[in-house]
């Protein structure tokens, strides 16, 4: 035995033998076009090894403009698949065709952050045998990483991809068809799913860098006419609310921030969606200029507002898990200080470096807040699912100061109630509730209450807010809930937080 053979035997390895194969000498621009990864959708599904009962996943970065879920599930239905588990980062009105796929047994389980429209209405009335699992964005990231949510095949839409699978939410080619910006909610799927299929409406030459998703994680690339209608993410321009109540709430929220003790050079901030919370940033911006205070980063949910303040030098870095409008998406593409992060890096409880752990202030909206500061953002006061958890509980729990902005009433529906219809964000995470009738501070934060009162803000007891609402609207009758559980709300640590029961139409 030679020394080489002995060394190999000692390591349990073979000895190298030179190959007889000749090199493929095709010019590489041509070779990449023959990449075995580029196939049709049907072929990608077949080769992925997808079987009945497995879990498929999707992201929702195109929001109401998404074309991928309906295309893929429609194709799976035609191919005869049954009992699939659909794990979406969220679902929208546009996903109404899923109702038929549920009725036909193609989809039998769903997990998501939220849902709206007809699909949500039918599910609230008991369409599915198994309850829908609702997770926050951070909670979904954790569940995928720790195996609670195992994905067999991920179908991820991308606005550009090369034949090897380097993909992102924008395109640098002049044939770009769509743009969604950050692919943050798709990144855990790309990393942990057994098989990853990228669907793209802009197949570009290798190397498509900088990329969000790496070829290393991608098994198949499918070219489709359109992955999403970018115009339906949100309008490109900054929309300023003209609603006087929203403006009042926004001004109050900005005053809370300025006087909270957290408004210092280098602070960090996130705003949720909703007119009042977006407008709050506008008023905060003026205070930042007046006091010469700059933010270290803005997190989210990045909007045109945040991009503008970054470009003005008021916010040093943008950390973007989801681009809320086209301006934000373009900024992510063009500005190196505008960073794309995965759902785990954004808000996972068990990710030590998650951005939410280092967040000072978050402004959030609510469908309902109760007298114990619990918040509901998922189920309407009529018992019908009509929203999404999003990052609400993640950011509220982690931020040093969480502010809920909501009107006392929406029409005849009270927003401050005895007990939330569905628990999404526990009251222990919520610090301040801003309404047009005054500001309630969680008793757990006496120092905050003192600072705000000292600044002359109108502090009220949350029970008085609830009573005031009831005085105006009268006493609501209890909702006609049935006994079937149609949804389970998971806390971000993987425990069960609440259940959603079916609504029974009164005869």
């Amino acid at each position, binding site marked *: 035995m030679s020394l080489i053979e002995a060394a190999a035997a000692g390591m349990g390895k073979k000895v190298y033998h030179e190959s007889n194969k000749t090199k493929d000498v095709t010019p590489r621009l041509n070779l990449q076009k023959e990449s075995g990864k580029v196939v049709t959708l049907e072929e990608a599904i077949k080769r992925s090894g997808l079987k009945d009962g497995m879990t498929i996943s999707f992201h929702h970065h195109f929001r109401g403009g998404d074309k991928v879920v309906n295309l893929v599930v429609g194709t799976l239905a035609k191919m005869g698949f049954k009992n699939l588990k659909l794990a979406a980062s969220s679902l929208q009105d546009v996903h109404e065709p899923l109702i038929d796929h549920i009725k036909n047994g193609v989809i039998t389980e769903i997990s998501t952050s939220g849902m709206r429209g007809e699909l949500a209405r039918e599910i609230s009335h008991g369409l599915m045998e198994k309850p829908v699992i609702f997770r926050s964005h951070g909670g979904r990231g954790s569940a995928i990483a720790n195996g609670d949510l195992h994905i067999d095949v991920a179908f991820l839409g991308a606005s550009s991809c090369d034949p090897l699978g380097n993909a992102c939410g924008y395109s640098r080619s002049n044939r770009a068809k769509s743009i969604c910006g950050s692919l943050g909610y798709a990144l855990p799927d790309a990393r942990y799913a057994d098989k990853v299929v990228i669907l793209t409406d802009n197949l570009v030459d290798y190397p498509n860098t900088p990329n969000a998703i790496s070829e290393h994680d991608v098994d198949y690339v499918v070219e489709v006419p359109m992955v999403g209608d970018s115009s339906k993410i949100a309008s490109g321009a900054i929309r300023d609310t003209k609603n006087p109540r929203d403006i009042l709430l926004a001004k109050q929220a900005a005053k809370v921030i300025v006087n909270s003790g957290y408004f210092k050079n280098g602070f960090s901030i996130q705003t949720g969606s909703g007119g009042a919370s977006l407008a709050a940033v506008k008023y905060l911006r003026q205070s930042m200029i007046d006091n010469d205070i700059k933010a270290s980063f803005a997190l989210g949910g990045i909007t045109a507002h945040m991009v503008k303040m970054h470009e003005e030098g008021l916010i040093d870095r943008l950390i973007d898990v989801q681009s809320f409008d086209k301006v934000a998406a373009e900024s992510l593409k063009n500005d190196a200080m505008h960073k794309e992060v995965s759902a785990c890096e954004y808000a996972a409880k068990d990710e030590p470096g998650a951005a939410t752990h280092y967040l000072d202030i978050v402004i959030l909206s609510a469908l309902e807040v109760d007298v114990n500061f619990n918040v509901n953002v998922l189920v309407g006061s*009529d018992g019908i699912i009509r929203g999404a958890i999003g990052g609400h509980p993640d950011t509220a729990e982690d931020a040093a100061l969480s502010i809920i902005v909501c009107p006392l009433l929406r*029409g005849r529906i009270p927003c401050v109630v005895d007990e939330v219809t569905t628990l999404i964000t526990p009251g222990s995470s919520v610090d301040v509730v801003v309404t047009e009738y005054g500001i309630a501070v969680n008793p757990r934060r006496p120092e905050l209450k003192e600072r705000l009162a000292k600044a002359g803000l109108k502090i009220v007891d949350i029970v008085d807010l609830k009573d005031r609402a009831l005085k105006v609207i009268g006493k609501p009758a*209890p909702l006609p809930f049935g006994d079937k559980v149609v949804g389970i709300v998971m806390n971000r640590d993987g425990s069960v937080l609440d259940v959603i029961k079916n609504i029974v139409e009164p005869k």
Partner: protein
Amino acid sequence: MEVKNASAGTLESGDILIQIFPSEAEGVQIDLNSTVAYQFGEQIKTVITETLSGLGIDHVAIKATDKGALDCTIRARVTAAAVRATGKDVWA
């Protein structure tokens, strides 16, 4: 009291559209469509019925399309519709 077809109100959020039609049947028949029907449906019907009986109106059919109106709004819209339907000014 003789009643003609009449209406009051709008379909704006926080308002209610009240349409009145003459009816052969005894009393007040209400066809209510409300965004807050589960919690306030019965209360809305009660307010409509009481407002009409206070004006001495029966033998009418009401079509009410509610977008979360408060009781005071409902009373105002029902009264305005009744005045238009009967031609009798209740405020005179």
